[in-house]
């Protein structure tokens, strides 16, 4: 149905970010956490909108903005992610002396960009959303102005991100040249119809993959990830590891799942993505083994997880992809929340050596962190296991047995470095005192919500699976 209501979630978020930006001027620095509360209100309103519009199929701008169930589901999990990220940011910003009002505004702008991306299937609109997301991301990365690492990360991210955007635009232009359209379904139809499109279309598609490959951080387009993840403020790292990845995959699945249905035409791209998935899983996990900085470990782990998600794309199974993203959201933000929890004024504990004995000194934080790590490693009964189970199961159904074997062996490697953090937390005696600021209710709420999410998805995922099934029922999305 064509109605302006389709803009509701997006507009709410945009209004929220503008409001926060204006109000910032009126709050003293100590009181900036009110901005977070205002953001929460708007996020809840937007989320309620997503729930309300379920099964309604609203669209606007000639269908260029289309709230299918799948889009709504993505919007919802992105809103949840932002919500959690703001929760974990509140105290962090004060402690790390980065309490700038534009923080929340930028975060909400990024969210609005992501909402645009997941609710459109026109490449130009998607590109608009991507740029809104990217520009806010660059600024967020460099938020800690006095910190060299943060600045370096911002510049790196900006340069490589611009390149990626350029590749993407270039790819869109090629596709337009080949097919005379920017709407994904029509492009796919043209590509499948055969020879007239030919090389031009394939090159275009390849460039689009490169563009999004940067955003979702798959090997070999992952080089920026560790530095940016390490340099950015930790809540923003959590945000990067989930948000852009989710939207990147939301777009890729719109392109490739219909495209792969014609196995013959898509052979080349299929092979390419197969290789990307395999090396992402292998390299991401292997390099993570050598890291000693927890943020970097989590950065490489997020690269590896992009590999597993890529397997879901190759398996052409939206359901498992969406489930994986949902589980990944909770466990990864949870892990970062635990990292943030182990911080004090002007200092974060990020080296593995800092984690010695943490598990017994701070049993609750230690235990929840351990659960998130166990989930990331894919042990039952957590969401991480079920997510891997679904993805690999879908891949086996498509006959991708060798890719699945690579996947499980890569995740064996990952077990080592996830458990390594646990070893430091529980099995080594601390060599020096680590004292942290534990007066942080918002953060603990976030930890609790993530823990709940991970366990709910691992043990009783029934309801969410039903929702996801409804969301993907409307394939191919238009």
């Amino acid at each position: 149905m064509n109605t302006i209501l389709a803009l509701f979630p997006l507009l709410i978020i945009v209004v929220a970010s503008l409001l926060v930006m204006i109000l910032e001027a009126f709050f003293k620095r100590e009181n900036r956490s009110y901005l977070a509360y205002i953001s929460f209100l708007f996020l809840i309103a937007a989320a309620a909108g997503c729930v309300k519009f379920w099964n309604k199929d609203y669209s606007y701008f000639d269908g260029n903005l289309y709230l299918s169930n799948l889009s709504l589901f993505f919007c919802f999990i992105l809103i949840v992610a932002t919500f959690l990220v703001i929760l974990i940011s509140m105290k962090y910003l004060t402690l790390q002396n980065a309490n700038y009002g534009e923080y929340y505004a930028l975060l909400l702008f990024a969210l609005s960009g992501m909402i645009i991306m997941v609710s459109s299937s026109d490449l130009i609109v998607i590109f608009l959303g991507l740029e809104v997301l990217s520009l806010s991301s660059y600024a967020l990365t460099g938020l800690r102005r006095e910190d060299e690492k943060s600045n370096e990360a911002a510049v790196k991210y900006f340069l490589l991100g611009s390149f990626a955007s350029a590749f993407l635009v270039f790819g869109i232009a090629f596709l337009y040249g080949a097919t005379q359209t920017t709407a994904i379904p029509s492009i796919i139809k043209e590509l499948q119809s055969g020879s007239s499109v030919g090389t031009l279309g394939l090159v275009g598609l390849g460039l689009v993959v490169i563009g999004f490959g940067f955003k979702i951080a798959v090997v070999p387009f992952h080089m920026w990830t560790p530095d940016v993840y390490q340099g950015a403020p930790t809540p923003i790292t959590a945000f990067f590891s989930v948000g852009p990845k989710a939207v990147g995959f939301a777009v890729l699945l719109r392109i490739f799942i219909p495209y792969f249905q014609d196995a013959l035409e898509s052979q080349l791209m299929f092979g390419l993505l197969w290789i990307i998935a395999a090396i992402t899983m292998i390299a991401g996990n292997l390099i993570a083994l050598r890291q000693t900085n927890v943020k970097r470990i989590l950065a490489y782990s997020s690269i590896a997880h992009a590999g597993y998600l890529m397997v879901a794309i190759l398996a052409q199974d939206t359901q498992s992809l969406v489930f994986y993203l949902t589980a990944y959201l909770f466990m990864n933000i949870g892990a970062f929340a635990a990292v943030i929890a182990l911080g004090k004024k002007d200092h974060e504990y990020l080296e593995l050596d800092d984690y010695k004995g943490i598990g017994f000194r701070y049993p609750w934080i230690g235990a929840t962190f351990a659960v998130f790590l166990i989930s990331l490693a894919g042990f039952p009964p957590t969401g991480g296991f079920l997510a891997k189970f679904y993805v690999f199961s879908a891949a086996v159904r498509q006959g991708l047995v060798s890719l699945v074997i690579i996947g499980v062996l890569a995740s064996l490697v990952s077990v080592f470095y996830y458990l390594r953090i646990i070893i430091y937390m529980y099995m080594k005696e601390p060599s020096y005192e680590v004292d942290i600021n534990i007066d942080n209710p918002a953060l603990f709420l976030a930890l609790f919500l993530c823990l709940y999410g991970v366990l709910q998805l691992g043990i009783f995922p029934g309801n969410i699976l039903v929702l996801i099934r409804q969301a993907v029922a409307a394939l191919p999305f238009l």
Partner: protein
Amino acid sequence: MEIPILSIVTFLPLAGALLFIFINRDKENLLKYLALFISIATFIASLYLFFNFNAQTPDPQFVEKSPWIGYGINYHIGIDGISLYLILLTTFLMPIVILSSWTYIQKRVKEYLIFMFLLQTGIIGVFVALNLFLFYVFWEAMLIPMYFLIGIWGGKRKIYATVKFVLFTMFGSLLMLVAILYMYNLFYKATGTYSLNIFDYYRMILNPSIQVWLFLAFGLAFAIKVPMFPFHTWLPDAHVEAPTAGSVVLAAVLLKMGTYGFLRFALPMFPDALKIFLPVLGVLCIIGIIYGGLMALIQKDVKSLVAYSSVSHMGLIMLAIFALNMEGIVGGIYQMLNHGLSTGALFLCVGILYERSHTRMIKDFGGVSKQMPVFSAFFMVCMLSSVGLPGLNGFVGEILCLFGVFKANKILAILAVTTVILAAAYLLWMFQRVMQGPITNDRVRSFKDLNLREIIYLTPIVILMFWMGIYPQTFLRKMDVSVSNLLNQVNRKEAIFTEAKKENNPPTYIFMEKETKTDSIAKEDKESQ
């Protein structure tokens, strides 16, 4: 409504663990007594299973089924004559293990007990699960508490040992996961319904060329767990570094998960592949028996001696199971229980020595029996039970195993007998060096004999050793029907594809008709979707 007794046995420890989270860590005595109480309650609940078990039917009993996630993933548990005893063994040992760590564990008692209970739920879950997914969940989930038990309360090289343990086991089980997914998918293609019910897979007989791969995947996971030579290297490390209670659980129950896996999954699902690999497996078992025995002979550390004796004994159990006849498999299962008891008891004895001396080196002891006559008696019974002295449990099991192997292959049987000879050699020699002779080390003079608590937890084991040795019928008769049903399955299925192979193009899979009322819930599943 019936009482879901099996679920209670499985999840009571988990409930205990959850309860413990909210108890203050300083109340150590409360924690310990509560733990003892919960573990005894679990044992009593499991006795209910034993007394109400119907020995006449091969079908799973105390079955509980309810939909869980959908797509064939259901909560489906039940036991038969094979799993019954393994559950009893687990619940029987848990109170003993908790008593044994009463003073041994001095730091972080609360976490220790929580992990113990999580471990127990995981292990029992493996034995009761009748759904492949559920089985896998327990199989993997059980690694985590064991990882912490070794890693936190272990010895000097604990981190190395625990990481090795987890990675070895994970390696096998991840490949098993791929195999499970493959079968899951194949079943779906064949029938149009999703199922992970193991009885559905019993009915689906696969082409041997596929069976081979699946058997390798499953077999590797189980062989690592058993452990069979050459996948045993994690075992001595894990055993030596683990705290006493961890070693006991590891030896007594965890290793049995591997043999149980062979009996429950690898044998009835892939009989043709099994027949193909039998020669290799047989040789590996024999190597394991002899190698384990010889290694045990040269160990300087009592604990690693017992660990290597496990490798040797488990080799005999696997060999007996691969004999694929009634005596062999019954003997194998019986020997699993015996090994659980006697090796568990030996680890307890080593633990008792270690608590007094803080060393496990054989050369540091000598003449201990003069100082500790009561302990000496207990230790001797446990040791002789492991050697296989007639009148004790080990003898019955070993004789049955060897009968079974002899029936299947005489040469292997002759080689397998070395296990008894070697066991006698390394255990008696160890006993002599540790317990007898003059006291060479002055520290030994300060050893106190067993206290009441130690006597309390060793006595039930010794009683059971005599009982199982003198009147094995109590236990054996409840296994027979299940085992003969298993053998039937293996033989009948193998025949089916031998028949089909005569044609040129054997199909990928053949479904057997349901001749018994095997409870397929695939249909219900389809409706619920």
